[in-house]
């Protein structure tokens, strides 16, 4: 990479960090305000003996009697140092609870994204380069499925086909509890390999496949909806025609030239849709009883679990923003058009 484009890349990355800091401050203020508007006293709800004195003592211990500004700065400082308090319900550290759930969700989300891109890009490229009609139909159909079929119903249909009729996949859960679950990173698919239990790998993939397939229609639709119009562009059509005329085979044409053209916008679109994908993951988890953060967050909200709401939500919002910024930065370094100072 030449020096000036490296500088440009770094400046762009710094700008993205600025966006991230802005999001952190904005979201933390919003969340803090929301907590202040909370109805009922969550502390009194949790105590076995809610007489005013005990409640006051407990509030004092948790620092809820300080002036609002002090409370806010304490909250912000604690969030940044990773001291997220204990859940009012399970009494376990919020960090532990959240991350054990979050890794399950991320495993599902990332597998779905991988799967969706894996079949979405070839379908889109085949469909756009004017080959078999079946790919055009497939690409159109996939683009529509995303908006027409609710993801939670699709999950049920997959269970009916895959578990009930074919009897190949389990109906729910992440792992078979007759075996000990290896614990290294929290991502089971990596953990079984790291723990040297290659024999369990099939089991993990078997549990993961249906939920990931269910969720993968969304990223696949995103990829297709981004690539397809670009390939219909007259300039691109001419490029395809001239490359074909020069005798490029399909593999070289798609892998070397068309993928490069489509790469940057696909990365941006995937990054932007990451939040929606997490939302879809929450629904998919409910269908497949996947032990992810969906049920955890819903429970925290319904039980008014202060510290989970304050810190868990802030972390997830930050995560979504970080992915968007990361995708933007990667796309920036991939796309020569953006580098030249275009949009």
């Amino acid at each position: 990479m030449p020096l000036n484009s490296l500088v440009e890349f770094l400046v762009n990355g710094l700008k993205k960090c600025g966006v991230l800091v802005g999001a952190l401050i904005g979201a933390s203020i919003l969340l803090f305000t929301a907590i202040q508007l909370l109805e009922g006293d969550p502390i009194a709800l949790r105590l076995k003996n809610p007489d005013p004195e005990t409640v006051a003592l407990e509030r004092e211990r948790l620092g809820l009697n300080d002036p609002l500004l002090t409370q806010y700065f304490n909250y912000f400082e604690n969030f940044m140092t990773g001291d997220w308090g204990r859940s009012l319900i399970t009494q376990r550290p919020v960090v532990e609870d959240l991350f054990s759930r979050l890794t399950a969700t991320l495993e599902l989300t990332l597998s779905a994204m991988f799967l969706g891109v894996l079949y979405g890009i070839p379908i889109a490229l085949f469909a756009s380069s004017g080959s078999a009609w079946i790919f055009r139909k497939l690409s159109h159909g996939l683009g529509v499925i995303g908006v027409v079929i609710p993801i939670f119903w699709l999950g049920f249909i997959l269970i009916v086909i895959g578990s009930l009729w074919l009897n190949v996949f389990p109906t729910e859960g992440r792992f078979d509890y007759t075996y000990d679950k290896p614990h290294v990173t929290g991502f089971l698919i990596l953990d079984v390999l790291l723990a040297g239990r290659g024999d369990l790998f099939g089991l993990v993939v078997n549990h993961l496949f249906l939920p990931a397939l269910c969720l993968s229609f969304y990223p696949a639709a995103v990829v297709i909806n981004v690539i397809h119009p670009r390939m219909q562009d007259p300039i691109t059509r001419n490029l395809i025609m001239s490359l074909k005329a020069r005798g490029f085979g399909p593999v070289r044409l798609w892998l070397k030239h068309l993928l490069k053209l489509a790469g940057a916008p696909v990365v941006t679109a995937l990054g932007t849709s990451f939040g929606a994908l997490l939302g879809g993951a929450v629904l998919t988890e409910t269908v497949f009883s996947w032990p992810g953060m969906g049920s955890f967050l819903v429970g925290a909200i319904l039980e008014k679990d202060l510290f989970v709401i304050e810190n868990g939500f802030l972390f997830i919002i930050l995560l979504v923003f970080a992915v968007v910024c990361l995708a933007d930065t990667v796309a920036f370094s991939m796309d020569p058009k953006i580098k030249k100072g275009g949009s």
Partner: protein
Amino acid sequence: MNRTRLFELLLGLILLWAFVGFFYTPLDPLSQDYTGNRLSGPSFSHLLGVDGLGRDLFSRIWLGSGHSILMGLVATVGNLALAALILFAEQKAPAWFSQFILSFVSGWLAIPVIFIALLLLVFLEQGPGTLVIAAALGNVPFTFRQLRVLWLYQKETLYVQASLVLGSQSWNLFRRTIWPNLKPDVSGLSKLIFAFSLLEVSGLAFLGLIGDPDFPELGSILRQNKSYLLADPWQVIWPGIFLSGILLLVQLSRSEQE
């Protein structure tokens, strides 16, 4: 009659059918039948069978479609109104403030609707109303951006410039010159927003955020019937067919407008 018109007509009929559900269903969607024919398949008295608590599935789906569609429609109207209001503010405000609105909206865009709904539930009661508010708020950034593009395009067109030069008042300019050109796009956009809202409302109900678990709504029916999935898959398949059918009609009725 072209294809889009045909689908619009079909969509209208489905909406009408769904709203009839508020006044008439073949059997009471809430009353349980204790005669022991739970999870029995379709018959003449129960067109789509009986659910696990002995309630007529077809009646539940009929009233449920009505509820889902009504919630989707209210969310759509609220969403369009709010997005238009923000656009108005953004256009009229001083530059620094409209810049602030723009960056605020792009941040908002990144947060999924489900999280917005969950955050609303921190200080609102569970119930259909909250889900409608969440669905309306969740799509505001999307609608705002779409409306803004349409508006900026219209503002620059020659006929609007000409009308301005001729000295037309702003309200008349909007009503006679801009709106007729904007109308087809806004109508297509509102159908899209309706589809999104319907998906979101039923998705949130499926998560159990609607409060009363017996409230007949397509998403909450799916949630309740989830436990009978292995015993009788049709309990879960039917509500989804109705939901997807409505969404498909919405999509087909707007496909040619783009």
